[in-house]
């Protein structure tokens, strides 16, 4: 009910099935349809029949590179379908020495941006039963009839600010490139928050973070959270208390965001994975904005050669505190 382009899917399936059957890869990481038509979950295809389930639609938001951390333990060679953000996530893992380049084959999929089901519902004003896409338009089908919307209006929050829809690293590019996007208002919500008073900002975060269940889904989905032991599970010293209260929620979220300074690729997986819709990407974007202003423009995951800003220094660096 949500297919975007049948030809694209056929092309992808042809290439990967050839490699899987030819033994070039042991496993393919892709997407398959989830429980609902608006969900696409990761697919772990090791046999030919698994590839039947492969899908490529506007809901393939899950970042697959993160799954390499587990899959490379059991497989010698893994093929991964990578969108722009997935490819930068792969670079990030490579830079952290968490994966080996020669163990992975990347199939590049230039990405038009993924759609947000909540926005579709909001726009349709009724329960949608499916969508059809053509020429930048999305036709939403509901029981009451059809409604057409501009595709840009239904994009996920994380895709609106995306600068690199094309994979930056791949072995084989399977679709036509999208080109570098112009994004005007990437930091707009951050600037709005910055203009508030300290009290208002604290109240904002206290309210947003109060919903946190500390399920750590944000961490599980995140390509920079690749530590084998995370501080939240460390027993001695126990940095992260187990109590359900604002203080502990702040501790977790500030430190989680801080661990991404100069490493966050702004893929927004944390926010997408959050079951209670905490605007986690705002914390990450704030740090990207600040570190860019202080130490020069840097986009994590674009290449492996440029050193992340916190791994290096200049003697004449500026500082955020009054003393230089």
């Amino acid at each position, binding site marked *: 009910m949500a297919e975007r382009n049948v030809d694209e899917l056929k092309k992808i399936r042809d290439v990967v099935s050839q490699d899987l059957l030819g033994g070039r890869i042991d496993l393919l990481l892709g997407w398959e349809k989830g429980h609902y038509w608006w969900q696409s979950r990761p697919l772990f295809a090791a046999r030919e029949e698994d590839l039947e389930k492969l899908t490529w639609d506007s809901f393939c938001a899950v970042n697959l590179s993160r799954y390499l951390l587990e899959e490379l333990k059991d497989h010698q060679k893994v093929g991964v379908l990578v969108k722009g953000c997935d490819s930068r996530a792969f670079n990030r893992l490579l830079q952290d020495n968490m994966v080996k380049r020669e163990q992975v084959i990347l199939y590049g999929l230039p990405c038009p941006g993924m759609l947000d089901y909540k926005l579709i519902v909001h726009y349709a004003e009724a329960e949608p039963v499916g969508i059809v896409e053509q020429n930048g338009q999305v036709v939403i089908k509901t029981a009451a009839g059809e409604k057409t919307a501009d595709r840009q209006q239904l994009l996920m929050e994380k895709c609106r600010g995306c600068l690199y829809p094309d994979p930056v690293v791949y072995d084989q590019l399977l679709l036509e490139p999208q080109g570098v996007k112009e994004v005007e208002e990437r930091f707009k919500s951050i600037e709005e928050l910055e203009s508030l008073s300290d009290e208002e900002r604290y109240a904002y975060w206290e309210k947003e973070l109060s919903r946190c269940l500390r399920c750590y889904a944000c961490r599980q989905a995140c390509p920079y959270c690749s530590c084998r032991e995370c501080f939240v599970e460390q027993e001695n010293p126990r940095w992260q208390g187990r109590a359900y209260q604002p203080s502990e929620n702040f*501790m977790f979220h500030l430190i989680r965001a801080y661990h991404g300074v100069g490493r966050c690729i702004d893929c927004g997986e944390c926010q997408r994975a959050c079951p209670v819709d905490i605007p986690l990407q705002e914390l990450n974007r704030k740090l990207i904005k600040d570190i860019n202003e202080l130490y020069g423009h840097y986009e994590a995951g674009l290449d492996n050669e440029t050193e992340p800003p916190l791994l290096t220094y200049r*003697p004449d*660096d*500026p500082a955020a505190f009054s003393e230089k």
Partner: protein
Amino acid sequence: MSTALNETKANWEPLIVAFCCTWCSYAGGDLAGTSRMSYPSNVKVIRVPCSGRMNPMFVLRAFQRGADGVLVAGCHPGDCHYTTGNYHGRRRLSAFKKLVEFAGFEPERFEVRWISSSEGDKFAEEMETITEKIKALGPNRKMRDARWQSVT
């Protein structure tokens, strides 16, 4: 809640945690002491090997458990005992300061200063200044762990 939360400004005294690098700032504090300079007893000094050793979780834990202000003091850039520790610390702590301000902390609550081992007077002066600033701001309730009573 606890009596600490009902304290009036009149009888309240701030608690300030100062993380001092062992080679410069801690020695600067020593010099202030041996030179018989006085600085407010609100400041509790914790010795760290280097300002580059500062884990931001130290700062947040201090706020959770009663600190009204946190100061990190290290060697002047270029004078680090480990050559580059404070250069790295400067970048990390700058990013962290921006983050705690974004979370809603007043900028004065978390500060970084460079104090060398020969600057006993500067050490006393900085402790004086930060205590005054925090006194003017009043008690910190942000990120306070509700189970933890103020020790002051």
